[in-house]
């Protein structure tokens, strides 16, 4: 009797676990779709990254656009990403797949700094 109860409960647990994975899978897909749509923009103008600090979810794509009349670059201090030189109206995008803090600066005008916080 106890053995069958044990077996039954094991079975139930197994079914629940499998069911749980299924649920997890569905929510993973849903959130990936939500996150894929997540974008943020940083405008570069007057020697300033605006906003200087942004918070985005994991998987978000940040696009920097240079509205200044002088070229700038976007370079991660930890060498995670590096744009080519952006002249006026040129853009650079990077998708953040890992959580963390990503300080960056303009390698031509190193006093210009900014940060992307990925949560």
């Amino acid at each position, binding site marked *: 009797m106890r053995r069958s109860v044990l077996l039954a409960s094991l079975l139930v647990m197994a079914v629940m676990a499998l069911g749980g994975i299924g649920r997890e899978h569905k929510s993973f897909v849903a959130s990936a779709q939500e996150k894929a749509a997540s974008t943020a923009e940083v405008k570069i103008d007057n*020697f*300033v990254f605006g906003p200087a600090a942004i918070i985005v979810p994991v998987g978000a794509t940040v696009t920097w656009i240079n509205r*200044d009349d002088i070229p700038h670059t976007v370079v991660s201090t930890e060498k995670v990403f590096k744009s080519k*030189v952006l002249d006026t109206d040129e853009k650079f995008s990077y998708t953040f797949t890992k959580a963390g803090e990503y*300080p960056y600066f303009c390698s*031509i005008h*190193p*006093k210009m700094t900014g940060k992307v916080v990925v949560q």
Partner: protein
Amino acid sequence: MARNTKDEILHDHNHDGIDRRGFLKCMAWAGTGALCVIEGGVLKSYSMSRPLEMNPRDMKGELSFVQISDSHMGFNKPANTDVAATLQAAVNKINALSRPPEFLLHTGDISHLSKPEEFDAVEQILKSASAKDVFYVPGEHDVLNDDGKQYHERFAKGAQEGGWYSFEKKGVHFVGLVNVMNLKAGGLGTLGHEQLEWLEKDVKHLKSSTPIVVFAHIPLWAVYPEWGWGTEDSAEALAYLKKFGSVTVLNGHIHQIMQKVEGNVTFHTACSTAFPQPKPGEAPSPGPMKVPAEQLRSVLGISDVNYVSGQHALAVVDSTLA
């Protein structure tokens, strides 16, 4: 049409201080370079945007050369839509000197975007200068994209690996330094350990009576750190030059003339041949400064004319009156 080379308004119909009858084309804001004359081992510099104030008698010396800077070939925004023309005008002024300078020093930002055609254009224009030798140091705009490889191949073949070098002319020791590589976030210009070690050795055995001229792009003194106008480790470089009786430091980068004397060292910065920048703190950022000449430009039908009221003698550049 009368040639008016004095700072004089003949007809002021619009009451805005701009004479449209005469053809006022002014390069005063952009400046055209500094004529440097070494006399008795001491360097004197003369701004070439004030040709009428330059007395040939004052300019005799053992050696003369011209410093130009920040040509930004490739820049084409409203502050100056034709930087090639203003560079050519600078060369024309050089060629008008009664005594041709021995060589030119270009203190960097030769190009605007480190593009080959930009470097080509500057070399082409400078070929028409009366001085055939040009010595360069790079600006941060010259080493984009390729860690300075292109700059090095064109302008620093005989230099040390990092692009720095020295040479002698008539007993004067010239040192070209590079302070635009490896810029760090939030930082200023930087010379770096290797270059400083080289500098120490380079000047060690020179007699203290040797006149020294150091040229580099970013100023070697703290002009305005908030805008990155300074070099982090310049103090060490200057320490190696302490023993010399006459040291002149020539810089660019800030697109305006500034001078400072500290003991035996005189610092000069040069104007840009392309566009001016605001004085420290007088604008939210150190970007290209537009001068009020839009109306003048369109009325005279000239593509690159700028007039700044209250400036010194106006230099007449070639014109086409509409």
